[in-house]
C-alpha cells in the first residue's frame, strides 16, 4: 500500500476517533443506551434542541412514551440544523447526506415560499380597478359586499374590489404597515379620526376639497355642528365623516326601577343619590355585590374614550381639550369635576376595582354601563330571559346642560397614490347615499353621520323596528370628535396614567395630578407648533 493511501487511512481513523469522543457521538451513545454523558462547563458540551413550540411538543411526546423501561429520557439532538454544524452532531456520512438533503429541501421550500409571497404583491400602478378595504367586522363586510356588488353591476362604473382589512391587533397598525410597505388600497372606510393628522403630515391621504362638489355634499349630509370637528389643521378635509357610535349609558331596568325604585339620573348629584340608595339596600338585604358603573381600569390609552372623554366633552358642552391656538385645557374646573365624579365612585365602592372577563351587566350586578350601539345586538344575543335594559344620556354636572358625548366616529379616506381619485369619490358618494345609509343601519346597526336621521321618512320604518337605535340617533347632533394632533395616542396615554393615579388608586390629589398632566400634555402639543 503506498504512503498516501496509508496516510489517508490514518487521517480517517484519527477523524473517526475524534468523532467517537466528540460530544455529538457521546449523545448518540447515550441515545443508544450506552455510554455516559460527561458533564462539562455550563452544559456547553450538551447540544440542546431549540425550544421552539414544535420541539417542545416532540419532547413532550417522547416524555410520555420513553424508550424501553430504562426510565431515561431520550432527546433527539438532531433538529433541523444547517449542515455547517454536522461536525458537532457527529452522524455518520450516510445519515449526514440524508440529513443534509432534508435540510436543503426545507431551506429551499422556505426560499420558494418567500419568493411566492413577494410575487403575490401587485403594485398599485398595475391595477385597473379600485381596491376598497372595509372593516373586518362581519356585519360591515356583509354591507360592503352588497354595495360593491350593486356598484359593479353598472358597467359604466370602474370596478371596485372589496378586501376586509387584514387581521391584526388593531386596524390602525395594519394600515400603517400597508403605508410603510406601499400596499395601501385606494379607499379605506374604517379610519379612526385620531390618525388623520399623522397621515396628512406624511402626505399619504388625499384632501377631499379637491373635488368640486365635496363641500356641498358634505353640508347636505352632515349635522351642522359636526363639520369643524373633521377639518384638519391646514383647513382641508382629509376624511369623509361616515358613521358614529355615540357613547351613552345602558341601564338595567329591573335594578333601577324595581330594586332601587329610582328614575334615570341626569346629573352627577342624582347619580350618587341613587348610588347611596344602592349601598343602603345592599346593607339591608345583603346578597351579591352590585355596582353603579364599571369603567375599565386597565391603563390602556384608548380606554379613556369610554369613560373620561365622553364625560369631559359633556361637562365642557362640546369642547375638546386642545384649543385652535394649541392651548391645553385639562386643568380646568370641568375636568376636575369629571375626575372627582369617578374618584368618588371608587372611594365609595360604587365602582369596582377589578378586571372582569364576564359581562357583569348581564349578570344583574351592574346598574349602569357605558357603551355604544354595538351593545344592542350583543345584549339581544346574550341577555338572559327576562333581562330588560334601556339607554340614557351620560350624566352632566348641572341640570339643563345638553347631552354631548364622544362620537367614536369611523370615517373614509382616499390614499394619495390612487390612480382613480374621481372614481373613488363617486364610489364614496354612492356608498353614503340615503339608500345605502339605510342599508348600513339595517345590516350593521350602526348610525350614519346624517343630520336628518329621525326626520327622513326613508328611515322611519327602521327606527320603528329598532326602537333602541332611536336614542343613539337623537345624540348624533351632539357627538364630539377628537383634537387634530400628531401625538394623540401619547396624550391619551398620559391621561390614562394620570387617571390611574388620581381616580382609581388615589395616589395623588386631583389638583396636583391635573396640573402635572396639563403641563405634560402642553409640552407634547408644543412640539407641533
Amino acid at each position, binding site marked *: 500500500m503506498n504512503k498516501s493511501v496509508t496516510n489517508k487511512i490514518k487521517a480517517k481513523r484519527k477523524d473517526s476517533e475524534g468523532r467517537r469522543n466528540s460530544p455529538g457521538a457521546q449523545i448518540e451513545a447515550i441515545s443508544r443506551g450506552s455510554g*455516559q*454523558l460527561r*458533564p*462539562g*462547563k*455550563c*452544559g456547553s458540551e*450538551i447540544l*440542546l434542541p431549540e*425550544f421552539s*413550540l414544535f420541539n*417542545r411538543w416532540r*419532547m*413532550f411526546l417522547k*416524555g*410520555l*412514551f*420513553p424508550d424501553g423501561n430504562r*426510565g*431515561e*429520557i431520550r*432527546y433527539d439532538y438532531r433538529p433541523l440544523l*444547517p*449542515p*455547517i454544524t454536522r461536525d458537532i452532531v457527529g452522524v455518520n456520512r450516510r445519515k449526514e447526506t440524508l440529513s*443534509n438533503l432534508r*435540510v*436543503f429541501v426545507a*431551506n429551499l421550500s*422556505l*426560499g420558494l415560499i418567500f419568493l411566492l409571497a413577494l410575487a403575490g404583491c401587485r403594485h398599485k400602478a398595475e391595477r385597473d380597478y379600485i381596491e376598497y378595504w372595509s372593516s373586518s367586522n362581519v356585519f360591515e363586510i356583509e354591507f360592503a359586499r352588497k354595495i360593491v356588488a350593486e356598484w359593479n353591476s353598472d358597467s359604466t362604473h370602474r370596478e371596485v374590489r372589496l378586501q376586509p382589512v387584514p387581521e391584526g*391587533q388593531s386596524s390602525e*397598525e395594519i394600515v*400603517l404597515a400597508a403605508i*410603510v410597505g406601499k400596499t395601501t388600497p385606494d379607499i379605506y372606510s374604517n379610519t379612526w379620526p385620531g390618525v388623520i393628522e*399623522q397621515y396628512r*403630515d*406624511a402626505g*399619504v391621504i388625499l384632501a377631499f376639497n379637491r373635488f368640486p362638489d365635496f363641500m356641498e355634499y358634505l353640508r347636505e349630509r352632515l349635522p351642522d355642528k359636526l363639520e369643524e370637528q373633521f377639518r384638519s389643521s391646514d383647513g382641508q378635509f382629509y376624511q369623509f365623516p361616515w358613521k358614529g357610535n355615540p357613547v351613552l349609558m345602558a341601564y338595567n331596568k329591573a335594578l333601577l326601577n324595581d330594586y332601587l325604585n329610582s328614575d334615570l339620573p341626569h346629573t352627577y348629584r342624582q347619580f350618587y343619590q341613587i348610588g347611596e340608595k344602592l349601598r343602603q339596600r345592599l346593607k339591608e338585604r345583603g346578597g351579591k*355585590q352590585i355596582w353603579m358603573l364599571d369603567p375599565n381600569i*386597565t*391603563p*390602556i*390609552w384608548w380606554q379613556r374614550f369610554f369613560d373620561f372623554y365622553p364625560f369631559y366633552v359633556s361637562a365642557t358642552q362640546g369642547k375638546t381639550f386642545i384649543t385652535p391656538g394649541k392651548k391645553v385645557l385639562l386643568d380646568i374646573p370641568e375636568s376636575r369635576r369629571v375626575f372627582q365624579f369617578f374618584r368618588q365612585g371608587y372611594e365609595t365602592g360604587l365602582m*369596582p*376595582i*377589578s*378586571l*372582569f*372577563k*364576564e359581562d*357583569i351587566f348581564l349578570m344583574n350586578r351592574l346598574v349602569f354601563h357605558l357603551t355604544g350601539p354595538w351593545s344592542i345586538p350583543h345584549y339581544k344575543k346574550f341577555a338572559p330571559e327576562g333581562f330588560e335594559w334601556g339607554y340614557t344620556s351620560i350624566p352632566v354636572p348641572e341640570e339643563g346642560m345638553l347631552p354631548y358625548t364622544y362620537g367614536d366616529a369611523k370615517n373614509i379616506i382616499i390614499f394619495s397614490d390612487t390612480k382613480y381619485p374621481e372614481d373613488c369619490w363617486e364610489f364614496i358618494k354612492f356608498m353614503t347615499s340615503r339608500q345605502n345609509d339605510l342599508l348600513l343601519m339595517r345590516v350593521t346597526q350602526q348610525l350614519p353621520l346624517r343630520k336628518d336621521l329621525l326626520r327622513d321618512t326613508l328611515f322611519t320604518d327602521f327606527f320603528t323596528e329598532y326602537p333602541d337605535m332611536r336614542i343613539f340617533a337623537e345624540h348624533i347632533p351632539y357627538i364630539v370628535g377628537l383634537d387634530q394632533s400628531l*401625538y394623540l*395616542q401619547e396624550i391619551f*396615554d398620559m391621561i390614562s*396614567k394620570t387617571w390611574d*393615579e388620581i381616580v*382609581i*388608586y388615589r*395616589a395623588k390629589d386631583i389638583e396636583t395630578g391635573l396640573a402635572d398632566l396639563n403641563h405634560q400634555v402642553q409640552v407634547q402639543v408644543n412640539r407641533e407648533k
Partner: protein
Amino acid sequence: MNREEKYGWLLVSPYVGFFLLISAFPIIFSFILVFMRWNMLSPMKFIGLQNFVTLFQDPLFWKALSNTLLFLAIHIPLQIVLALIISALLNNPSLFGKSFFRGAFFLPVVISGVVVTILWKQLYSTETGLLNNLLLSMGFGKVPWLTSPKIAMPAIAIMATWKNLGLYVVILLAGLQNIPRSLYEAASIDGANKITQFFRITLPMVNPTLIMVIILSTIGGFSLFIEPYIMTGGGPLNSTLSANLYIYQQAFSFYKMGYAATLGFTMAGIIFAVVALQRKFFEREI
C-alpha cells in the same frame, strides 16, 4: 474552494439568504434606527445620540426595568427551587405514573401563553375570580391579585412560574439522571443521609444543568411581555410595566421606532451583562 466546500455552501445558501433577510437585516436596521427619529410615515431624521439622552432621562424606562428585575427576583428562585424539588421526586425509580407526571408538568409549557394568561386573568379577578371565591369560602378576605400595585407583579411571577416550570423540570431531570448512582451508594456506605447527599452530590453534579436553567430563565424572564400586556396593560400605577411591554408601546402605540430600537439594544446589553455575571458567580467546574 474545493468541491466539498462548494457543495456545503450551496446547501446552506437558502438558509443563509433567509437568515440575512429575516434576522440579520432587521438587527442591522434596528441599529441604524438607534441614531434616527422615525415614525414609519415620515422620512427618517438623523439625531445622533439623542435617543440615549432621552433614555437616561426617561423615568418610565427605569421603572419598567426595575419591575422586570423584581419579576426575575421572584420568578427565578421560585422556579429553580420548585423545579429541583419536583425533578428530584420524579427521579425516584420506583415512582408510579412517572410518565403521566412528566407529561402533566410539561403540558402548560406547550399551551399558548395567551390562552394561559387569559385563564389566569379570570382566576385572579378580584371580585369574581375562582381564587378569591376559594379564599372567601375558607373564611379569608379577597386578595387584589392584579389590582394592587404591591401584589400584581408577584402574582404575575407566580403565574409565569406555573407556566414554565415543566420545561425546567424536564431539563433538570435529565441532569439528575446522569449522576452516577455509585456516588450515592458510596455516600450511603460512608454514612451520609439524604440531605447531605443532596447538597454534596446532587447539587454539585447538576450544576452545569442548573446554570443553563438559570440562564434560560433569566433570558425568558427579561422577555416578559404577554402577561402584563393581556392581564394588566402595565398597571396598576405602572407596577407591572415590563421593559418589553414598554418597548412595544413606544414602537407600536406611539410609533417612536428610533427610541424603541434604542431601548431594545439597551435591554440586550443588560441581559448580556446579567448572564455573564451569572456564569461568573454560579458556574463551577466539576
